[in-house]
């Protein structure tokens, strides 16, 4: 309980710092106000109009006052509109969040579903032909940036055979499951490739370590089959680093897959926020950063709880402390 409280305090602290830094930084981005006014009023605004805009947006107040104002808006849920498009910012993020969430979940699932068996087998048959092949392929994947992978996938699977739409068209999972899968397939695979490679390497190293443990010998001496040995005995104790790196990736995936999102025209958190930076939609950027940070922290909390599942000792220690 105390642990949860502490984590909560930490989360709030991080969100506050992140958003505050963002708001300070945004204020100092060159050419800021001028551009905002131009966007808000269109070219040719007279000084009074400009004044009004500045006042309306609170740009004439101190950084702190602006920040406090922003926090108020953020908490109250009244996020206002984008300067240029008059779209409700809240609505935009309501649309972007599931896109990012699906992308994150699918790419993580694809990466993990592939990485776990390959890593187990690779570790079990260390230096075998399979291992060498898998390891080499992994290095290749680690070295392939997604701005190279995405066009190749599109060429192969959208242009040459029309398996998947390009660019992706968002469909809700329940609205039309098939279209949904088709829309997310290529971007998820693109993201999953380097993820897979990273996970595979981390897990393989850990499983090799675990397989050298005495309890694995115990299990073998029990007559446990190889599959059960790897899945039931070796996997779980080896998950620590994997879960940790997967957790770190979550932040990156929530907002950092801008290139993939842009290439496939998916309006995820990252794209919306980055476009916000480019278009000087500062309020959008601020909400985006705050949301991404929140999601990241929330998921990390979940991941911490996963540690307890992986290692009962952690659970014990937590329960006590």
């Amino acid at each position, binding site marked *: 309980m105390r642990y949860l409280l502490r984590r909560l305090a930490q989360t709030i602290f991080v969100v506050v710092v992140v958003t505050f830094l963002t708001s300070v930084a945004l204020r100092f981005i060159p050419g800021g106000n001028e551009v905002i006014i131009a966007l808000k009023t269109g070219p040719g605004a007279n000084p009074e109009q400009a004044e009004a805009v500045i006042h309306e947006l609170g740009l004439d107040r101190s950084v702190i006052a602006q920040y406090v104002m922003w926090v108020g808006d953020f908490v109250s849920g009244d996020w206002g509109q984008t300067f240029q498009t008059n779209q409700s910012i809240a609505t935009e993020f309501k649309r972007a969040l599931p896109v990012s969430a699906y992308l994150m979940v699918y790419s993580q699932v694809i990466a993990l579903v592939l990485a776990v068996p390959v890593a187990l087998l690779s570790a079990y048959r260390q230096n075998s032909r399979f291992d060498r092949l898998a390891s080499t392929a992994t290095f290749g994947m680690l070295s392939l940036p997604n701005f190279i992978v995405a066009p190749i996938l599109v060429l192969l699977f959208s242009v040459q055979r029309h398996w998947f739409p390009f660019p992706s068209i968002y469909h809700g999972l329940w609205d039309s499951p098939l279209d949904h899968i088709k829309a997310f397939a290529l971007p998820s695979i693109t993201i999953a490739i380097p993820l897979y490679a990273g996970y595979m390497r981390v897990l393989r190293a850990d499983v090799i370590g675990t397989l050298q443990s005495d*309890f694995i010998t115990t299990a*073998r001496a*029990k*007559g*446990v089959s190889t599959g059960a040995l790897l899945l*039931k*005995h070796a996997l779980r*104790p080896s998950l620590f680093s994997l879960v940790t790196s997967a957790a770190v990736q979550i932040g990156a995936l929530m907002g950092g897959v801008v290139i993939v999102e842009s290439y496939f025209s998916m309006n995820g958190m990252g794209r919306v926020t980055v476009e916000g930076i480019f278009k000087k939609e500062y309020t959008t950027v601020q909400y985006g950063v705050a949301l991404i940070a929140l999601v990241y922290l929330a998921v990390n909390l979940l991941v911490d709880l996963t540690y307890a599942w992986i290692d*009962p000792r952690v659970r014990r220690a937590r329960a006590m402390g």
Partner: protein
Amino acid sequence: MTGRPLLAGGPTQAATRQLDGGPLLEVTDLVTHFRTPRGLVRSVDGVSFTLDRGKALGIVGESGSGKTVLSRSIMGLLPKLNTERSGSVLFEGREIVDLPLKERRRIWGAEMSMIFQDPMTSLNPVMRIGKQIGESLRLHLGLSRRAARETALRLLQDVRIPEPHKRLDQYAFELSGGMRQRVMIALAMACGPTLLFADEPTTALDVTVQAQILELIGLQRTERNMSVILVTHDLGVVAGHTDEIMVMYAGRLVEKAPTKVLFANMKMPYTEALLHSIPKIDDPSHTRLNVIPGRPPDLVNPPAGCSFSPRCSFAQDRCRQEAPPLITAEHPEHVYACWYPVGSPHHRARSAELAAAAEGLVARWREPARPTCAPTATRFCVSKTW
């Protein structure tokens, strides 16, 4: 396998097979070498012995003498990669050396099982105790989850664990060392094996617990009529709990005899040295122990002649040139490999010399107050003056 009787606590399948006659285990010229970048490691180099049902055999030797590899090699637990294994192991009359992995698995846990040295690391840290014990029950006997759990509970009772109910849902780290080893024993005996390997089962434990565990193994052995191979570096451990003792050095069998015969009349200077290295409970603390000088031989390039010769106080030129064969001693089941065994004239003369020299040394040692020496885990001796 479902048709087999469930054996935990009941009559064992060893008992039912007793009728077959013949030894339970017959090892002939077993060789186990490992290929390493340094060269071929000859961990087990032609060992032969037999073991009857219900008997306990002690395999004794220093670290690196090949005793652990021998036990694992018999069981077939060693990885195939980079391992060279030859010879024959007849288990219940069946050759098991080249058995495919699938067949071997059927034997593991069910007919042969093993207890390991360190119960902390040998138990899965993230699996509940009950599940770990239940796993082999379900695997070999096809029990349901529920039955497996009940049987596991009975097994825990059998190994005299306090509050066995509670233990079923605990993890290894929540138990004491002694309890963990009891769990290991319960685990090893779950399916009523006919042969139990106990690989240094007490090394990691407290002295008082050691005795209890050995007793428990002994008790279970008689209750279930299974054979036990007790692997240890400690002659003291095997003394009271085995019928027969086999001493190994550098991958070879160097002396073998029924326990009583061996202690009454050991032939190998090496065996004698091992015996002297046992600390006696009534020794004052910080008594300097008698250790065997030198290091165990390099198994890649073993010394010529008798492999113990470089460290043997009694070694002669012959020992360094010619490897001694196994010689049968007075007792027909007592064999040893030594040109100048304990009790031989040469040995007696040399002993007297050494004893005299030692007398002087000890006198000099006793005189000045020695610094207090607290052995640490890393065996560094940190004194205050340092």
